Every structure is written in structure tokens, then in C-alpha cells.
């Protein structure tokens, strides 16, 4: 070990406080980097797994492979999973459904591959177990055909009776999903499509093309799930690759900037404090290059433990956060879980990142150290200007320590920088969290309806009302008949859009609606001449023309019904508004008698009508049981569970809040650590001057008081300015985002309180450390030694 390395290691050990401060600063930076990278990596893996869920991870397809080539291909070590299916031909679902009569593909798979590929896309029922059982698309069920029935199916013109055992999700990504029949076979006979899940993603397209050649097919025929592969950065599309890399780079750039400032300040402080030592080394013949190396070495030596701590805290922090979020998601049955992944890639990047940032941060201090003139060191050792100035003012000083504290505070330019940094930190913390708070508060809108059910077909009002009142205690319950009509020509704003027609009992119609059809007007998002968003009435409130309505399905231009109507804002009709608000497009209220007449005039069938019930529950806990009861009794009904929806929303919002508050707090911590670091370093730097003051009779209590006042000044100034700016910032951000309909602005007093409390804790930490340091100071040694 070279003498300089020895020297640098020992000085790190000697100056424990400074070393620890620097390591803490670097650890926070490293934690931020590791947490971000591991977090991004985990989100990436989670998103990929979700994207490939329905295709069981089999993202590459080799079509038209022969039997023996397929066996070789499937044994390749480049895959973690493979499966194959055979396309048997086309089919007609004669007799099963009147829709989509042609172009149904029939696929055959062996039992093992069927299990792998069909399980994630099974919408209902079970997998086929014999060769005369089939899976059909979900649309084919209903209108007389059902799971468990034998159906006649034409395959390649041949008529077969097959047992329907389940249905396939039509919209899944899987190649065997969609408009298809899926069957079981003992073995595949002809050319087949081989599906593979790659074991790794580097150079995927080139490797797969090579495999395609050995499998005897043209590389161009190989297809990829590019959108899923893009998530892993393995897309064949250079542009999407670049986007992914830029996202990671942008994140690293932000953290890098913060970490750079922070590490730079720590190292710079150390170099400044070591001016005399470096000068002495220079006078003894240390070359500039040797001194630069010394600074780099010392910085990297500190970065290493910081990186290890960063790994520890970053990984466990993300792990803990994800576990918490997952638990919440599981509770609310969101069907999405975060996969935690801390593999070598993010960890290596974090390591390189820290090394890079540290070297970059050390560059300027190292250069400065190498430029320190040997003479400067010798001269400062002879006469410290601070000491001599203080000696002159001895007696004055004793009486005016506090005035001195104020003066020094004003003179110190580094403190000016600290004040700016502190103010910005507090302002950003309060501003960002306050803004988030307002955003999240505004998304938690109150709701009139807990649950809605819509049943198509004949009038089910009595049955629905009975079931709901049996199952749960309700605060409010409205059950109505609805159908829809097409608006023709008038009113102009609604032309060619569909309108809901709602029937209320005749008595109510007479009492509440003055026996006149009533249009419940709603407000929608519009854009004014200046391009600003605002809400406007769907139908101008002054409109007094007629409403011309036709059949909703067929675009005949002939009006079945032309009527006058009262125009009423939906919000003034709360009992019914809740029912129709869900589509946001107004509704026409009529009596039951009128409804029946209109149905005939509009040419609506019974199947065009629906029974709609809206419930506000006394006890929200009842929602699950009620949903279950409704869907069991009314098959094919649409039940909307707003409570479950809310729970999911809250889960997402909480996750969002945890992540964003966590990130903001970490960033705030980074710059706070810089400030703490700086104040402590300044304290260490003053050690000798303070010892001098003590030697001339200042008590340690007086000195502590002076230093505490200095720190309090800094923190109070920063706190007050930061609070002002922070509150303004959150208000300004809010105004930028806000629309007329958002709730009023909430001043972030909790966030402000948290920030100020944090500052108080910091002040206390300073006070305690100062006291301890001054108590244990060896005055004699400090005055004499360099």
C-alpha cells in the first residue's frame, strides 16, 4: 500500500464525524439509485408478466414447422418454455349462434400444451379431457347453446357432434384465442406452430432468426409479441428500444444530478478542510497527479460502504413497499401483483452509476486540491486570521457572543448557499406533497350510488326490488324501466346520439314532473374559444323546441315520437339523476303509460328495454353479498359495484401516494443531508477557533448558545421562506391543473407541519452534537496541532 493510500485511510478513520457524514450522504444517494433501478426493474418484470399472462409467456411463434424439426427446436436451451399447436382447418358453428358464422379456426393441442396455453384464456367451464370435447368463443354461448351441451359443428365441411366444456376469452393476446375452437389431441400430425418463451432477451431477434433457419422455416415468418418484448427492451423496433433506454436514463439523470451535488459538496468540504495538509504535502514534493489520486481514492473508499448500504436499504425498501402494495391489491382483488426483482442488471447499473457519480463529483475538488499552492499552507499555519481577529476582540467578544454569531452568519457565503438550498428543499417538499394531496383529494369524489344493476328484457322491477330489499338494508333505492331512442335533428346538440328514456310510475310523473316529459340536462366537458376547458350544458338551458326521436338501432330518418319537454338540470332531480348520471348524457323522464306508447311508436322490442335499479346501502359491507345474489338470480344482468371500484381506486391511489411521497421525501432527505453535512463540517472546521475561544475563558455553554443561534437562524429563515414558497408552489401547480369542477384548494398545512418538525429535529441534533463536541474538546491539543 502506498504511503498516500495509508494516509488517506488513516485520515478517514481519524476524522470519524466527517467520514460518517460523507458516507451518510453517499448512502442516501446510493439508496435512491438502487431503489429507483430495482423499482423500475420490478415494474418492468411485473408489466411484462402481465402482458404475457394470456399467452403463458410464449411470445415468439415459429409457424409451419415439421414434426422432426419441431422436436429439435423445442429442445433448444434458449427457451424456458415451449408449446405447439396445429391448425386443423375452418369451421362453422351452425346451430349455435346466428353471429360470426364463418372463419372460425380450429386448433388442436396435446394435453400438456393445452393446459399451458388454454388455462390463462379460459373464460368459463373447464379444459377438454377427451378428443370430442371443445372450447368455443364466449359469444357462441347463449341463445339456446350452453356449456355442457352437445353441439353440431362443421369442421372442414364435416359434421360432428361435440361437447362444449368451456369458453375462450375472445380478446386475449393468445394465438389460439379469438374466433376459434380449441380441441384436445393425442399427438400432432402435420406442420405446427411452435410457441416459445425465451430464457433471455439479449439479441433476441437475431437468435430466433438463426433458429428459424435450422427449423427449416423462413426467419421472416417468425412472429413476435413486440408490445410485450418492448417492455423488456427486446423489441425489434429500434425506436421503442430507445424510448425504454431514455426512461431509465432520465430517471438516472435526475437522481444523478441530486447525488452529484450532494457528493460533490461533501468531498469539496473535505478538501477545503484539508487545505493545509494538502499544501504541506505539496511542499514536501507531492505531485499534482498524486494529490488528485488521493482525493479520488478517498472518495471511492467512502462510496464503497455507501453503495453496500444503498443496496441494503434500497432493496429492502422496495421489497417492503411492494409487499405492502401487493397486500392492498390482494385485499381489493385487483388481479395485479408487483413482482419483486433485484437481479444483477439494476444492481450492476447502480454500482457503475455510483462509481461514475463519485468520480465526477470528485473531479473538481481533486483538481482544486492539486492546485493548492504549498506556500498557502505554510502561511496559514503561521497566522490564522480568524484567531488573531478574535484575540483582538477578546473582551468585547465575551459580552457580545450573540452579536458575533449574527455577524458571522451574515459574512459566511457558504451559509448563503445553504439557505438557498434549504429554502428550495422545504419549498419543493411542501409544494409537491401539497399538490399531490390536492390531486388525490379531488379524485375521491362522493357518490350517490353504491351499486347499479341493469337487466335486459321484460319488466323485472318487482322482482329486483324484492330481492334487493330482502338482501340488504338500503338508504335509497330507485327501480325504473329504461329504453333508448335516437335523437333526430332536434335538439341540435343531441342529433344522432342515443337518448335514454326512463319510465316512472304515473302517480310520480304527475306529482314530480307536472305530467310533462322532462329532459334531465347534464353538463359535459367543452372547450371555449380560448381553448380552455370548461363545463357546458348538453342542451342549451334556453332551448324550447321539440325533441324528435326515432328507433335506436335503425337509422330511419323518420321520427316515431316528436314531443315537447321541460328542461331540468339533472342535479335538481337527485332521486333519479343518480340512475342516469352514469352515462353522463342526460335522459328523458316519462310516465309508464307514455313509455309503453313510445315503445310501440319507436318500434322497440322487449329486448330493447331494461330494468335498472340503483341502490345506496345503509351498510356498505353488504355490497358483495348483494352483487352475488343479483348475478345469480338475474343471469346476464350487468351489475356495477361502485364500492369495489372505490376500493380498487383507493388501493391504486394509496400505492401512488406511497410511491410519490416516498420519492419526494427521499429527494428532500438528500438535500437535507447535504445541509446537515455542511453545518457539521463547518462545525468541525471551527473546532480550532472554538478551542481558542474556550481557552480565553468562554464557557462551552456560551459557545453552544452561539452555535445554536447560528443554526436556528439558518433553519428558521429557510423554514419560513420555504413554507411561503412551498405553499405558493402547491397553489400554483394546483391552479395549472385545476378545472372549475374540482373542489377548492386545500392549504398543505400537514405537509408544512411535517417539514417544520423535520427542521426542529435537525436543530436538536445539531444542538446535542455541538454540546458533546465542545465538552470533550481537547483545547490544548487543538490550539497547538495543525
Amino acid at each position, binding site marked *: 500500500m*502506498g*504511503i*498516500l493510500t*495509508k*494516509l488517506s485511510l*488513516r*485520515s478517514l*478513520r*481519524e476524522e470519524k464525524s466527517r467520514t460518517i457524514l460523507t458516507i451518510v450522504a453517499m448512502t442516501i444517494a446510493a439508496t435512491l439509485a438502487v431503489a429507483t433501478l430495482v423499482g423500475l426493474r420490478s415494474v418492468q418484470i411485473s408489466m411484462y408478466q402481465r402482458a404475457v399472462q394470456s399467452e403463458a409467456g410464449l411470445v415468439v411463434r415459429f409457424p409451419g414447422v415439421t414434426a422432426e424439426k419441431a422436436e429439435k427446436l423445442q429442445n433448444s436451451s434458449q427457451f424456458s418454455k415451449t408449446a405447439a399447436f396445429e391448425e386443423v382447418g375452418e369451421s362453422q358453428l351452425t346451430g349455435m349462434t346466428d353471429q360470426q358464422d364463418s372463419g372460425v379456426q380450429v386448433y388442436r393441442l396435446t394435453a400438456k400444451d393445452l393446459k399451458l396455453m388454454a388455462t390463462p384464456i379460459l373464460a368459463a367451464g373447464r379444459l377438454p379431457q377427451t378428443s370430442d370435447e371443445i372450447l368455443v368463443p364466449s359469444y357462441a354461448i347463449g341463445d339456446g347453446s350452453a356449456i355442457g351441451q352437445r353441439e353440431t359443428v362443421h369442421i372442414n365441411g364435416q359434421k360432428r357432434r361435440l361437447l362444449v366444456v368451456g369458453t375462450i376469452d375472445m380478446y386475449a393476446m393468445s394465438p389460439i384465442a379469438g374466433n376459434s375452437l380449441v380441441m384436445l389431441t393425442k399427438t400432432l400430425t402435420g406442420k405446427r406452430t411452435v410457441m416459445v418463451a425465451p430464457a433471455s432477451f439479449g439479441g433476441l431477434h437475431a437468435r430466433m432468426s438463426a433458429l428459424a433457419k435450422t427449423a427449416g422455416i423462413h426467419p421472416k415468418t417468425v412472429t413476435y409479441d413486440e408490445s410485450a418484448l418492448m417492455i423488456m427492451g427486446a423489441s425489434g423496433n429500434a425506436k421503442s428500444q430507445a424510448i425504454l433506454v431514455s426512461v431509465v436514463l432520465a430517471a438516472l439523470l435526475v437522481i444523478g444530478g441530486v447525488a452529484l451535488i450532494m457528493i460533490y459538496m461533501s468531498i469539496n468540504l473535505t478538501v477545503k478542510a484539508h487545505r493545509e*495538509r494538502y499544501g*504541506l*504535502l*505539496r*511542499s*514536501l*514534493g*507531492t*505531485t*499534482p*497527479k*498524486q494529490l488528485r489520486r488521493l482525493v479520488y481514492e478517498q472518495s471511492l473508499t467512502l462510496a464503497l460502504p455507501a453503495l453496500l448500504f444503498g443496496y441494503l436499504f434500497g432493496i429492502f425498501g422496495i421489497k417492503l413497499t411492494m409487499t405492502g402494495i401487493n397486500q392492498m391489491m390482494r385485499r381489493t382483488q385487483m388481479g395485479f401483483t408487483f413482482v419483486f426483482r433485484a437481479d444483477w442488471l439494476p444492481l450492476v447499473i447502480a454500482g457503475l452509476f455510483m462509481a461514475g457519480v463519485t468520480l465526477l463529483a470528485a473531479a473538481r475538488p481533486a483538481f482544486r486540491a492539486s492546485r493548492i*499552492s*504549498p*506556500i498557502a499552507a*505554510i502561511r496559514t*499555519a*503561521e497566522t490564522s486570521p480568524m484567531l488573531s481577529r478574535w484575540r483582538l476582540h477578546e473582551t468585547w467578544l465575551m459580552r457580545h457572543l450573540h452579536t458575533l454569531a449574527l455577524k458571522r452568519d451574515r459574512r459566511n457565503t457558504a451559509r448563503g448557499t445553504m439557505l438557498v438550498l434549504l429554502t428550495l428543499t422545504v419549498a419543493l417538499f411542501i409544494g409537491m406533497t401539497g399538490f399531490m394531496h390536492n390531486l388525490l383529494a379531488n379524485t375521491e369524489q362522493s357518490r350517490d350510488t353504491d351499486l347499479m344493476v341493469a337487466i335486459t328484457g321484460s319488466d323485472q322491477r318487482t322482482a329486483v326490488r324484492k330481492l334487493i330489499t330482502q338482501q340488504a338494508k338500503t338508504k335509497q333505492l330507485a327501480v325504473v324501466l329504461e329504453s333508448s331512442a335516437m335523437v333526430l335533428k332536434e335538439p341540435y346538440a343531441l342529433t344522432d346520439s342515443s337518448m335514454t328514456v326512463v319510465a316512472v310510475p304515473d302517480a310520480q310523473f304527475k306529482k314530480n314532473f307536472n305530467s310533462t316529459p322532462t329532459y334531465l340536462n347534464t353538463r359535459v366537458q367543452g372547450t371555449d374559444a380560448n381553448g380552455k376547458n370548461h363545463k357546458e350544458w348538453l342542451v342549451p338551458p334556453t332551448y324550447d323546441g321539440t325533441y324528435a326521436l326515432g328507433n335506436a338501432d335503425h337509422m330511419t330518418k323518420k321520427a316515431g315520437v316528436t314531443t315537447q319537454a321541460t328542461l331540468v338540470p339533472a342535479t335538481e332531480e337527485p332521486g333519479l339523476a343518480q340512475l342516469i348520471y352514469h352515462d353522463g348524457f342526460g335522459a328523458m323522464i316519462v310516465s309508464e303509460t307514455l313509455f309503453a306508447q313510445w315503445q310501440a311508436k319507436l318500434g322497440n322490442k322487449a329486448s330493447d328495454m331494461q330494468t335498472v335499479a340503483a341502490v345506496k346501502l345503509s351498510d356498505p359491507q353488504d355490497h358483495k353479498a348483494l352483487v352475488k345474489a343479483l348475478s345469480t338470480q338475474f343471469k346476464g344482468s350487468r351489475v356495477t359495484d361502485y364500492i369495489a371500484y372505490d376500493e380498487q381506486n383507493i388501493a391504486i391511489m394509496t400505492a401512488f401516494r406511497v410511491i410519490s411521497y416516498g420519492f419526494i421525501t427521499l429527494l428532500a432527505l438528500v438535500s437535507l443531508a447535504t445541509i446537515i453535512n455542511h453545518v457539521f463540517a463547518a462545525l468541525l472546521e471551527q473546532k480550532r477557533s472554538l478551542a481558542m475561544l474556550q481557552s480565553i475563558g468562554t464557557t462551552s455553554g456560551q459557545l453552544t448558545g452561539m452555535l445554536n443561534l447560528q443554526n436556528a437562524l439558518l433553519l428558521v429563515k429557510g423554514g419560513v421562506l420555504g413554507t411561503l414558497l412551498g405553499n405558493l408552489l402547491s397553489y400554483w401547480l394546483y391552479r395549472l391543473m385545476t378545472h372549475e369542477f374540482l373542489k377548492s384548494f386545500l392549504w398543505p398545512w400537514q405537509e408544512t407541519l411535517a417539514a417544520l418538525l423535520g427542521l426542529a429535529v435537525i436543530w436538536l441534533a445539531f444542538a446535542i452534537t455541538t454540546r458533546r463536541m465542545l465538552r470533550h474538546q481537547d483545547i490544548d*491539543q487543538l490550539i*497547538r*496541532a*495543525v
Partner: protein
Amino acid sequence: MAILTADHLTKKYPGEDTPALDDVSLSIEAGEFLAIVGPSGSGKSTLLHLLGGVDRPTSGSVQLYDTDIYKLNETQLAIFRRRQVGLIYQFYNLMPELTVAENITLPTELDGKTVPAAILDELLATLGLQEKRGALPSQLSGGQQQRVAIGRALIGQPAIVLADEPTGNLDQRNSQEIMDVLHQANAKSGQTIVVITHDPAIAAQAGRVITIEDGRLKEGR
């Protein structure tokens, strides 16, 4: 033979009206023991620093043998200092984390060489520091610390040893011990030594004395 020659050395500090050192020429012979005396603020330290290559003159030159040291770049000048110059200050200027032995061998180690154990032992004996070789500077008295600094200056057998009031901070007994060590090095191995001092008694022990006043060389002997 002149080992070190200063020609028309002038040093003006920025912001000062009169130069701290004004047109000083001087030559130092190999094996000489030279004392520089003069009132406080007369420019003694300034001259010494210019001779040792730790500062740069406003004008004039310093030549060691045939090398004009201020024509060297920073790295070459640093190497010049560690090989050819031994500096001793009034304040001992030791590295607090290094032991006595490590402080002494520091310039040689910076050169990437190691000091033979026998040579180090002998030097420690001369300095009376055998017992203290593993001690840290904070565990030494002022006189002992200054002896370490002298050891550090002598170890590489530099062309010239420059001492700036090496006894300014010490009592008389310790001062004499320091001077004895320096004289011994001068006498035994012909080490060229330049000492700045206030003390007429110390100046009297030197082979030659020069006086500086207001930055000018006043008289030589």
C-alpha cells in the same frame, strides 16, 4: 562550488505597494551552513520559500546546479522539492495520522522508494527518537516534533535543507538540541543548510550570516 544561485530575485505580493523581496542575488556553496537574520517582516521567509521552490518569484531566477527551477512545470517542481529540498518550519507541520517513522520517510515514499531500515535507524538514533518511532505526533513534545520534521528534511540527503525559524517555538534547551542535530548533519555528511533565525546566539554558530532588511540584502559576512 555554488550549489544554489539566486539571481535578482524579486517578489511582490498582489495588492502590496512595496515588494516583499527586492532584487536579491545570492549564492550558496555546497556544504555551507548559512544563517539569514533580519527583523520580522523583512522578507526572510519569502526568500527561503523562493529558494525551496514552494513559491514563484515575480522576477529573477533560482538555479540548482544548472537547472533553473522556475522553468520547471508543476510536476517537475514537485519532484525537485522532494528530491533536492528539505524544508523545516517553525510549526512542525507533521501529518497527524502518520507515525514518527512514517512522517520521516514520507518524501522518499512519495518518490516511490523505500528507505533502507539501517539508514532510518541511524537517523532516528541521531534524532534521539528510537523509542518514539511508532508514536503519533500528538504524543510528542514540541522539541520532539521538530526533530521529526528535521528527520523528514534530512532523510533524502537533499541538495539543500531550508529551515525557517526552527527553534522559534522552543525553549533554550530544546533549541540547542535542534541546532546540534543540524550542525551534526552539516559536519558529518556535508549537508548544505540554510537557517532563518532571530536568535543572535544561533546565528553566531553559522558559517556565514546574511542580513535582510525591507526586502533587501543588507550585508554579508
